[in-house]
């Protein structure tokens, strides 16, 4: 039941010249198992976020395969692919950009539940349960994104992801925009949720101390290659 990348490569077109391409990474393989955290490090521009996006299905790979439950995601039929996209979620760095500024948090939450077909009367209880697990009060649901702090919106973003009951979350610099004290709170919350729900994390950060605190296995992207520690 793992999520894996098999000899993955991603290249972008470089400017308007035909044939000129910039390879972000190539021949990259890694496996994340349920309940496990894989820590991904690398300098700015090394391709960490691109890898996260490709694994979550937000961008297609140029070569190689992303496999979910052992199946190549490129060969999945419509309903399998939907299940894959729902089970693998991404949390981004900038908490203030995570929510639609024109909608209250409650509306944003309900939209997600509408999408997955939770009946309206049942939604309130589901949302209350999720808010409790991310440590927030229901009072926040009536607010707009600019009325909440960075730590709260990162908790809310996490809560919205949990509504979908994902198996894997790609955490792309989830605490880089936060203060040290709030960062510590979020890291502990992530660990707690992982042990309760058995979610697998791909934890992306340029902060080595944070990655080492969170992850059981650690890799670093250098010059387009993934070097996994302890594996030659």
């Amino acid at each position: 039941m793992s999520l894996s990348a098999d000899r993955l490569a991603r290249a972008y077109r470089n400017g308007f010249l035909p044939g000129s391409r910039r390879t972000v990474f190539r021949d990259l393989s890694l496996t994340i198992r349920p309940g496990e955290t894989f820590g991904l490090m690398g300098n700015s521009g090394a391709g960490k976020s691109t890898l996260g996006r490709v694994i979550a299905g937000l961008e297609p790979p140029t070569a190689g395969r992303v496999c979910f439950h052992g199946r190549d995601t490129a060969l999945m039929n419509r309903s399998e692919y939907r299940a894959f996209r729902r089970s693998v979620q991404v949390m981004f760095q900038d908490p203030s950009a995570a929510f639609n500024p024109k909608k209250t948090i409650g509306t944003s939450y309900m939209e997600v539940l509408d999408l997955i077909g939770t009946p309206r009367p049942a939604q309130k209880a589901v949302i209350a349960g999720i808010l409790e697990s991310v440590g927030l009060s229901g009072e926040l649901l009536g607010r707009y994104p600019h009325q909440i702090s960075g730590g709260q919106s990162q908790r809310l973003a996490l809560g919205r992801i949990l509504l979908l009951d994902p198996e894997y979350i790609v955490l792309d610099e989830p605490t880089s925009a936060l203060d040290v004290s709030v960062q510590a709170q979020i890291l502990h919350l992530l660990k707690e949720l992982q042990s309760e729900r058995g979610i697998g994390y791909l934890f992306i950060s340029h902060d080595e101390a944070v990655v080492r605190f969170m992850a059981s296995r650690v890799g670093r992207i250098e010059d387009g290659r993934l070097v996994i520690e302890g594996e030659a």
Partner: protein
Amino acid sequence: MNPVLEIDALSVTFCGKQAVHAVDRVSFSLGGGEILALVGETGCGKSVIAHAVMGLLPGEAQVSGRIVFKGRDLLALSERERSAMRGKDCAIVFQDPSRALNPVHRIGRQIAEPVLIHGAGSREEAHRRAAALLERMGLSPPGNYLPLYPCQSSGGMNQRFLIAASTILDPSLVIADEPTKGLDPGRVREVEDELVRLTGGGRTALLLITHDLAVARRIADRIAVMYAGEIVELAENDAFFDRPSHPYSRGLLQSLPEHGFVPIPGSSPSPVSPPPGCRFQARCRDGKAVCGGQHPDLVSAADGRMVRCWQCR
């Protein structure tokens, strides 16, 4: 020696629908060659102090207290007098160089710009000073850097260019607002070295605003911790990091990686209606009855540090 900057009971209130008390009776002074780090969480008022000193607060901000810069009370000056000072005697380095630099002008022109604005020299003279400054910063030959556009160099390099542009007129006071935010570790060190070099002559004072305690520890002489608009502890660097006194300072240090990311429970109080007693009381492990009732003052402790806490006396 007279301090370069002396702030006395500075309060800033934003008057919108509700009055937001962003900064509440903050006092400190800063001497030439000294680096004072102002640390604390987002929203604690650090940047508001920086903007108050620079005179960059929006119109709805009510400022009281005194900001004495080289013997003159800045709050009593006209906008014209302040703008003559801004960028010349006192300068600010903003966070996020990709937004603070103009993307369509070359680096050389942007570094030289303050010289032209303050009429301190001709175009050639300005260009020559910009080149000399880059040379002093170890970016040589400057001819390689001056013609670049901001998009052609890294975030760390741009931050150093921004420091150059802010300091080309050799100001007595530099305020650096989160100068290392979002940079890779190697780049952070370069920016730190630049800031230390600035104050090396013993004339320029640096007010470093940061939430990165590791940066503060490496370069600051003194640390001022802010919480909910107030300074809660002000101490020498070593004393602060070896023996933090205020419970909030201790909590902050505990949440660092080297202490295992132990979080402080709860969150900061609302700046609209701060609690009457100690503002940290609701999150404090040592809180007692007196803490909730009466507001503690910032008082000197035995070793010369200042602490705002009933239990630390």
